[in-house]
C-alpha cells in the first residue's frame, strides 16, 4: 500500500465501529472502486463541517442558532425530554409519540471514562429552566448505573429548588413481545412498573 492510502486508512479506522478490515475496505472503495463519487463526498463533508453545529438551546444538530425542533412553534417547549445522544432523540422522534422538545446531554456521568458534569450539556439546560417555561423534564437516559447516576445528579443539583416536575421513562416489555422471551431483569422492572388496568 502507499503512504497516502495508509494515512487515509488510519483516519478511517479511528471512526466509531470501524476496525482494520472495514477501514481498508472503505478506503479501497473510495479510491479505486468508485473514485467518481469522491468529490461529492468531500464536498458534503466540508459543507456539513461548516454548517452543522449544536443547537444553542437543546444541543441537537442545527444549522441555524436553533435546531428545527426548537424553532418549531407547534411543539410544546414546556415539556423537555432529556436524552444522552442525538441518535436517542432521532429514535424517539421516529416513534412519533412525543410532541415536546428535547435536551441532548452528549453523554452521561462516568468518572471511569473521565466524563464529569463539565463535559455534559448541563449549562444550557440550567439556562432553559432559569428563563422559565420548562414545566416537566422527562428523563430518557439509559437504565444503567451511569444513566441512573446522571438522573440523580439532574434531580439533586440542576432542578433542586426550581419548580420543575421530573419524570423517568418506563422500563419493561417490548411492544408486541411475549413474556416468554423477555430476560429476567426486564421482567423484573416490568413487574415493578405495573399499573392499574381498569
Amino acid at each position: 500500500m502507499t503512504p497516502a492510502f495508509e494515512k487515509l486508512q488510519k483516519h478511517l479506522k479511528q471512526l466509531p465501529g470501524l476496525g482494520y478490515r472495514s477501514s481498508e475496505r472503505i478506503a479501497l472503495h473510495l479510491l479505486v472502486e468508485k473514485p467518481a463519487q469522491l468529490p461529492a463526498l468531500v464536498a458534503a463533508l466540508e459543507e456539513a463541517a461548516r454548517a452543522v453545529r449544536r443547537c444553542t438551546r437543546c444541543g441537537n444538530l442545527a444549522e441555524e442558532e436553533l435546531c428545527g425542533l426548537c424553532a418549531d412553534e407547534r411543539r410544546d417547549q414546556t415539556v423537555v425530554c432529556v436524552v444522552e445522544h442525538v441518535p436517542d432523540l432521532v429514535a424517539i422522534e421516529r416513534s412519533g409519540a412525543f410532541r415536546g422538545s428535547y435536551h441532548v446531554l452528549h453523554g452521561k456521568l462516568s468518572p471511569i471514562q473521565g466524563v464529569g458534569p463539565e463535559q455534559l450539556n448541563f449549562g444550557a439546560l440550567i439556562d432553559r429552566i432559569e428563563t422559565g417555561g420548562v414545566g416537566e423534564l422527562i428523563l430518557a437516559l439509559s437504565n444503567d448505573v451511569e444513566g441512573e447516576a446522571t438522573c440523580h445528579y439532574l434531580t439533586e443539583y440542576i432542578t433542586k429548588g426550581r419548580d420543575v416536575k421530573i419524570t423517568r421513562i418506563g422500563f419493561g416489555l417490548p411492544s408486541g413481545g411475549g413474556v416468554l422471551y423477555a430476560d429476567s431483569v426486564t421482567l423484573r422492572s416490568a413487574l415493578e412498573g405495573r399499573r392499574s388496568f381498569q
Partner: protein
Amino acid sequence: MRLRSLTLRHFRNVGFAALEFSGRQHFLLGANGQGKTNLLEAAGFLTALRSFRTSDNKLLVGHTQHTAAIAAVVEHERQGETKITIKLRHDGKELWCDQARVTKLAEYLGKFPTVVFSSQDLQLVRGSPAGRRRWLDLTLAAMDPGYLRALQMFSRALTERNALLKTGRAGETQLAAFEQTLAPAAAQLIALRSSGIKALGATVKSGYAKLCDDAEPASLVYEPNFAEADAEALLARLEAGRARDAQFRTTLVGPHRDDFQFNVHHTAAKDFASEGQQRSLVLALRLAQAAWFQEKSGVRPVLLADDVLGELDPVRRSRFWSAIDHEAQIIATGTSLPAAELGTWQIFDVADGAFSERGAPREAAL
C-alpha cells in the same frame, strides 16, 4: 445433570481430548502434571464461565494458540440433552447453547451446576476474605438472578465512585449521584448474603457432623463490613465518610469488604481448628454448596473431586463417601486407583495431556 461427553481443544496442556462418559463414576488416573485437573477445570467452567483455579482466562488457552474450545453434551433434568460450546480467546469468550449464541451471563449462569472439591479449598478457611467473597458471590449468584443483578450494579457503581475519588477532586453532588445507585444495590447484597450464609451454614453444620464425630458444632458467621441491610442507613454512612474516602481515594465502607468466618465450637477455625478439622470444614462447605444448588434449581450438580479421595485418611474418606449424594455424577482424579470400597469406576489414563479410556478398544493405527 450428567455430563455425557466432554471435548477439549487447545485447553491448557490438552491439545485435543474427547471423553465419552458412561455410568456415574469416572476416574482420571495419572502422575502429577499430566492434565487431570485441567479436565476438571474445563468441566467446572460450564457452571459460571469461570475457572476454579484462576481468574485470568488467558492462562486457559494453550501455549502458542489463539483459541481454546470446550464442548460438552449434558443430560439435564430440565432441558433434556443440551450441547454447550465455549470458545476462549485471549480477549474474551463466546458461548453457544444448542447452537444458539448466549450473550447474557444472567441467562446462563448456574444452569449447569458443578461443584469442585479441591485441595486448594483449604484457602477458603485460611486465606484472604477476597477468596471467600468470590466463592460466596458465585454460589449465590448462580441460583439467584436478583443477586447477580445487585452484584453487577453494586460493582459498577463502586468502580465509578472510586474512579471519581481517584481524581482527587470529587464533587459532593457527583459522589451523591453514584451513591444513590450504589446504596440500594449494596443493601440488597447485604440482605441476600445474610440469608444465604444462614441457610448454607445450617447445611455446613449437619455436613460437618457427618464427617467428624467430634460433637463440636460447626457454623458460618457472616461478618458484614456494614451490618444494616438498609439503603438509607448506608447512604448516610457513605455521606458521612466522604471526607475520609477522599483522603484514601477509595470507598472504605460497603459489602466489597464483607467476609464470613468458619467457626468450630464457637471459635474461629482459621486460628484454632486443627488441619483435619479445617479439611472437614471445607468438604462440608462444598457439600452444602452442592445441596444448595440442587435445592434452588432442582438440578443435581456434577461433583468434581480433584485429588481429594487420595488425601483423606481411610476413616474420613469413608465418611465423606457416605455423605455425598449417591445419585450425583462424580468425576475424580488421583495418582492411584481409588480404594475398592468406593465402587466401580470408568477409568481414563492421563499422560501428557492425552486421555485414553482403560478397557476401551483401541483405534487401529492408520
